[in-house]
């Protein structure tokens, strides 16, 4: 497992990719600083909805994770090196799991730091809120990573399909259609944040913290299992 993990870390740590991720991750922090100096009628609610909900959980986190996760298998399928791994005498989960862990290892710190500093600035050194935002962001990264790693394995157009999912589903339908929210990763990340700090997103109708944790686990393990299944069934180029 260590070999696949280290290989994937090296494959995914291109300078350009990391640079773009750093820029994306910095944006919520910059917006938080700007909002701090722009007095509005309800600054906390505005900060939660704009920076944490729409921007961090709904756009930046999935975009950063998509850029990494889709390449975890996608690049190997595209340049036909995946056979090096699949003709090895290791169970398929020992290929899929390190790919997922490497994705989280690279994308996680960017989003965690972005969430930490955004919350730290936006909630003016409120540690409970900052920790809640950071932890839920990491869980969100893990959920998105599992989904997009699988997507990179099943589609040669993973980036395009992933962008459509982020814009249409997470950004549009899940924001306006209450039923669709139940199938939104962003919703469960926010629910987890609310469970750890009930003052955050207090006006939204949330599932319980336990439910959010269970759903997060189901999403992560479920898509990992689908990746393993795909590795077993697919024709490896």
């Amino acid at each position, binding site marked *: 497992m260590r070999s696949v993990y280290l*290989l994937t870390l090296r494959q995914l740590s291109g300078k350009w990719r990391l640079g773009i991720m750093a820029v994306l991750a910095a944006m919520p922090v910059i917006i938080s600083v700007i909002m701090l100096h722009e007095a509005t009628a309800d600054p906390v609610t505005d900060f939660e909805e704009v920076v944490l909900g729409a921007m961090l959980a709904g756009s930046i986190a999935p975009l950063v994770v998509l850029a990494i996760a889709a390449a975890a298998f996608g690049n190997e399928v595209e340049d036909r*090196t995946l*056979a090096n791994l699949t*003709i*090895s005498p290791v169970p398929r989960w020992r290929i899929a799991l390190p790919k997922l862990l490497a994705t989280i290892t690279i994308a996680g710190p960017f989003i965690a730091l972005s969430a930490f500093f955004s919350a730290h600035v936006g909630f003016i050194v409120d540690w409970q809120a900052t920790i809640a935002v950071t932890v839920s962001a990491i869980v969100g990264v893990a959920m998105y990573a599992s989904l997009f790693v699988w997507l990179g394995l099943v589609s040669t157009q993973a980036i395009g399909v992933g962008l459509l999912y982020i814009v249409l589903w997470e950004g549009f339908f899940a924001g306006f259609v209450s039923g669709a929210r139940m199938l939104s990763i962003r919703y469960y990340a926010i629910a987890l944040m609310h469970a750890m700090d009930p003052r955050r997103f207090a006006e939204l109708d949330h599932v319980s913290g336990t439910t959010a944790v269970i759903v997060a686990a189901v999403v992560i393990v479920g898509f990992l299992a689908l990746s393993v299944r795909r590795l077993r069934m697919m024709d490896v*180029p």
Partner: protein
Amino acid sequence: MNATIRSSGDTVMREASGAAAAPVIRVQNVSRWFGSVVAVSDVTFDITPGITGLLGPNGAGKTTLLRMMTGLADVSTGRVTVFGEPVRDNPPLYRRIGVMSEHETVYGFMKGREFVTMMGRLRGVPELEEAVDRAIALVDLEDAQYRPMQTYSRGMRQRMRLAATLVHEPDVLILDEPLNGADPRQRLHFKHLLETLKEQGKTIVISSHILEEVEQLADTVLLIVNGKLAASGGFRAIRAALDQRPYHVRIVSDAPRRLAAAVVKLASVDAVHVDPDGALVVLSRNVGDLQLELPRLAQAEKIGLRRVEPLDDSLESVFGYLVDA
């Protein structure tokens, strides 16, 4: 070893001379289609220890067949077993198989040694460093092992990939077009390496679309044409069948009709006709004799030969002949 040449679609089993070794790879009634395109059609054969060449023109289905033999691709119908076990979705079996695909892509950021080490580690090789040393020495790349593979030539990449294929000392080696990019010296080295592995009792399958390449390397040939097994057996028998096929030879001369009247009398010539452009097209089953007789004849008849060329010497036409026979 005898060649068995049947019409396309027939099931052909290898006819081995002497005591038949137990088959290591068994391909039984295997077909594979992609949508409406049939890539491999009802192919059956056994492969025993030694070197077997999978020969066929580009697009014949060799790679699809090899991918099914390695478990990388699924069969549409039929069954492939290695050492009696299904090869598909059977990771423990891969400890005994070494596969080198036709794709030359490597992890360019990795040093050659790192790549071989990683592949050895994935295969659970004990005493890994020694095994890596041995594998790299086998392909004669010790000097380049600490260089990133993106700096390698095409031939060097292929050799380092071969080292990675050999690092766990597999019993079965499946090599798809392994000599792509190799220079004559590397080809000779590769030939000696395969012979050494063969003496160790390994089962080796190599694919190629180049007749001479397979002739030099393989004991037995499986001839694949249009997804079907056209012939199998010893190379000599297949080669003899190829040599007996009629060739069309185009001759441009300064007196075509006079040359046609003379050339038709040669024993090596089966038929002659004159093209509208004045060129002679000769059908011969004995091109070797024709090559000797034609210049003598032209000299005796005082006819100038401007051009002599085979019309159908491509591998595809050779395979086409075998399939139609």
